[in-house]
């Protein structure tokens, strides 16, 4: 199953969630109504008056209305609050943002592991938060991959080996790539509504006088009981929906790292630790399903648990597990030796020499072509493997230290991005720098000049990953700093007539990932459910891609036809556009419109682009990176294409 199918499946779980939730609300309303009606009957009977019947349509109306209002508001508000930036959830749980230039060895190791994983899956580097808790646990939050954040407890950071930490991170990344996060946010939101009843109950109890005939405190008690029932339903819904996703994430993680011992090792350590995965925080209940392992003790046993039992999870990976957990105590030590990735030396294809030489070979043959199957591209999306992980490790190690450091702070990240987008012509880029001095600051231009020679010497495959690494630092810009940055960015792209498609794509990637962070309103998503209104835009993109790397009209036409073949009947009717008509302005519009389409449609478009580029059965490094950049700009992360022998995937 690929990335997109996972997302679809997650949507299915989402529907189930909504149905279960609806049932719970109906049940709660019924309970509330019956309780109030029964009380009223009892009270009036006591008075010796004609008993009211149990069936009271007016009461029913008010109860349904009130209930819906409370639950509806509670849910809606929570969903709105949590939507978008996962950082809000992280902060709600008391998390502290880790700075990429941290001096703490445990944090450094964590950041290294997450960076490798981000590059290997082709997604932007998420923000990383640390929760101060001795238990071993982690979570991923945010509504989509570009707004994802990862949280890790100090116990997890210190008690796990590098490989085990990597396994846990892979599990979290799988949640991001499998579409679980949106589901989780919806879950948190809906449940908040049900819990709202209990909160109101408590308020009523506390603030009203206890006169004999005053029904308010009684109502308060009722609401409290209801709240408890709501909590019960809530846990039940959570467990029904989230357990399967946990098994799935475990399996995806093992597929990612090809290191089952690391995963079972991590799970065993949690089992062996006295506090296990338990998070001591007021908000742990709300977010319990987001965690790697159970964040709460469940008095109702494992039925209500958000996570499958540890032993079962271990057995799914290692059927030989005997059920014994090692004893662990908390001792925060992370040696410097553990910082570097331990490349597995026992298997031939994973030897460090092999990876280094593969990367070196790629560097030497800049314009080299590799044989390539276009279907590979989209299928690989969201399903990174061990080969991509090792590629990511090698890429980071080869990356110039100053460039890597530049991605870690907002000032350096800006300079890096501008340096990447400067004109290749010396005269023109000198003029650009002079203009930038006025539009930004001389200090920034100084930094750009320092980085520029290194950027010019960069491996083309490192450019998109560098941008992905720089994004969390750019998110730290203040709103006014961001405005200056984005207007300068746009100016830089527009002022350079020679700018190539790849650099343009990098700008779109930045725009996509940063806009959602800085703008409170989210743009229309899923506005288009059919590609038919978007055909002119598809035509433009495919034409643009067809012209890349080809001068022979026959080859261009061939590529175009290959690309439009995926669009079916409508595709056949499309006509190739001239190169002159595929300007950046038109591309901009095309991408912006396509971004309003559903994920499935965008996948189709990326698939078409992949076929356009691979029409002649081969693809250059530059073309591959261009495809990845456009895919990223369209919200469909594709892992890096890696040369060399790959193990066939098992799904």
């Amino acid at each position, binding site marked *: 199953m690929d990335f997109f199918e996972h997302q679809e499946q997650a949507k299915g779980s989402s529907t189930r969630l909504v149905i279960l939730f609806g049932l719970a609300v109906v049940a709660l309303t019924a309970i509330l109504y019956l309780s109030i009606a029964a009380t009223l009957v009892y009270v009036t009977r006591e008075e010796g008056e004609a008993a009211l019947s149990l069936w009271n349509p007016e009461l029913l109306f008010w109860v349904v209305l009130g209930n819906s209002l409370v639950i509806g*508001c509670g849910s809606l508000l929570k969903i709105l609050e949590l939507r978008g930036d996962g950082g809000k959830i992280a902060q709600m749980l008391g998390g502290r943002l880790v700075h990429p230039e941290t001096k703490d060895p445990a944090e450094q190791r964590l950041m290294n592991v997450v960076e490798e994983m981000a590059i290997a899956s082709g997604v932007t580097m998420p923000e990383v938060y640390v929760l101060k808790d001795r238990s071993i646990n982690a979570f991923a939050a945010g509504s989509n991959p570009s707004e994802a954040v990862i949280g890790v407890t100090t116990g997890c950071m210190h008690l796990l080996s590098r490989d085990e930490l990597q396994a846990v991170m892979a599990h979290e990344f799988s949640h991001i790539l499998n579409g679980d996060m949106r589901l989780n946010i919806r879950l948190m939101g809906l449940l908040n509504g049900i819990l709202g009843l209990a909160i109101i109950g408590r308020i009523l109890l506390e603030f009203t006088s206890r006169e004999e005939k005053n029904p308010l405190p009684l109502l308060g008690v009722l609401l409290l009981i209801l709240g408890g029932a709501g909590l019960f339903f809530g846990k039940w819904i959570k467990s029904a929906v989230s357990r399967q996703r946990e098994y799935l994430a475990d399996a995806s993680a093992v597929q990612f790292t090809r290191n089952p011992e690391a995963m079972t090792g991590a799970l065993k350590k949690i089992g062996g630790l006295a506090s296990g995965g338990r998070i001591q925080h007021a908000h742990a209940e709300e977010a319990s399903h987001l965690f790697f392992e159970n964040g709460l003790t469940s008095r109702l046993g494992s039925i209500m648990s958000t996570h499958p039992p540890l032993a079962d999870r271990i057995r799914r990976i290692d059927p030989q597990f005997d059920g014994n957990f090692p004893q662990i105590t908390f001792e925060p030590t992370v040696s410097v030796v553990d910082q570097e990735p331990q490349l597995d030396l026992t298997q031939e294809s994973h030897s460090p020499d092999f990876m280094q030489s593969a990367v070196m070979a790629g560097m030497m043959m800049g314009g080299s072509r590799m044989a390539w199957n276009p279907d590979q591209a989209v299928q690989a999306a969201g399903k990174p493997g061990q080969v991509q992980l090792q590629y990511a490790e090698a890429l980071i190690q080869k990356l110039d230290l100053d460039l890597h450091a530049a991605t870690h702070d907002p000032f350096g990240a800006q300079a890096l991005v501008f340096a990447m987008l400067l004109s290749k012509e010396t005269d023109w880029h000198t003029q650009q720098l002079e203009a930038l001095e006025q539009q930004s600051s001389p200090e920034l231009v100084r*930094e750009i000049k320092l980085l520029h020679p290194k950027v010019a010497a960069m491996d083309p495959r490192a450019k998109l990953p560098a941008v992905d690494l720089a994004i969390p630092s750019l998110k730290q810009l203040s709103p006014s*700093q961001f405005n200056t940055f984005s207007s300068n960015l746009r100016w830089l792209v527009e002022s350079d007539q020679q700018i190539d498609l790849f650099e343009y794509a990098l700008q779109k990637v930045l725009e996509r990932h940063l806009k959602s962070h800085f703008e409170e309103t989210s743009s229309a998503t899923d506005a288009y459910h059919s590609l038919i209104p978007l055909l002119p835009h598809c035509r433009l993109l495919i034409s643009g891609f067809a012209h890349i790397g080809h001068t022979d009209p026959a080859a261009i036409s061939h590529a175009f036809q290959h690309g439009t073949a995926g669009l079916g009947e409508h595709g056949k009717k499309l006509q190739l556009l001239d190169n002159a008509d595929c300007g950046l302005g038109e591309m901009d519009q095309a991408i912006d419109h396509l971004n309003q389409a559903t994920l499935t449609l965008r996948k189709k478009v990326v698939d078409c682009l992949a076929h356009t580029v691979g029409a002649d059965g081969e693809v250059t490094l530059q073309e591959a990176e261009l495809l990845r950049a456009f895919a990223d700009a369209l919200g469909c992360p594709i892992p890096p294409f890696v040369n060399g022998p790959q193990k066939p995937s098992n799904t």
Partner: protein
Amino acid sequence: MDLVSEIIMTGLLTVLGIMLVLVILVALWVMGIYNRLVTLRNRFKNAFAQIDVQLKRRYDLIPNLVETAKGYLKHERETLEAVIQARNQAAQAASTAASDPGSPGAVQALAGAETALTGTLGRFFALSEAYPDLKANSNMMQLNEELTSTENKVSFARQAFNDAVTTFNTQREVFPNNIFAGMFGFKEADLFEVKDEAVKEAPKVSFD
């Protein structure tokens, strides 16, 4: 009497309903204000962390700088010592501020210490102008360059921090937030403002 008690019952329920709704709305509104202030406070705390990282880098570079210069500036011990002292004080102030950037006075104290440090460094570099051997030393040149880069990063991070603090302070002061801000314990946050060193006094010329 039945009709009357029925009317009273209906009336009571309606009032109940309206009261409930009002209570909920007010509670939600206040919660919203609280959450917004918390978010803005977290934002400036994160922004401070950006400054802190660059300041630490600066404080790490300075001892190297002094070590390199010691050999050349044998008779300028006072200046070198002043640099180290100012650096230590600033490092101390930074770690205090880092533990809680929102506590009143902490960031201001840091700003003062930083101004002093910049002053001593300025005198140090002015002095080293007179020692061409020192200026030409490759280690010195590299350190100088790194220091400049770091100071640029500090300046940039300070700008973002001040933006975030201003936003927080404004939100704290507007009506009706100001009513609740005090109740919830949100204190006004300091800006990180480094003053330029006072212009050196012109040498007095006497015509006795």
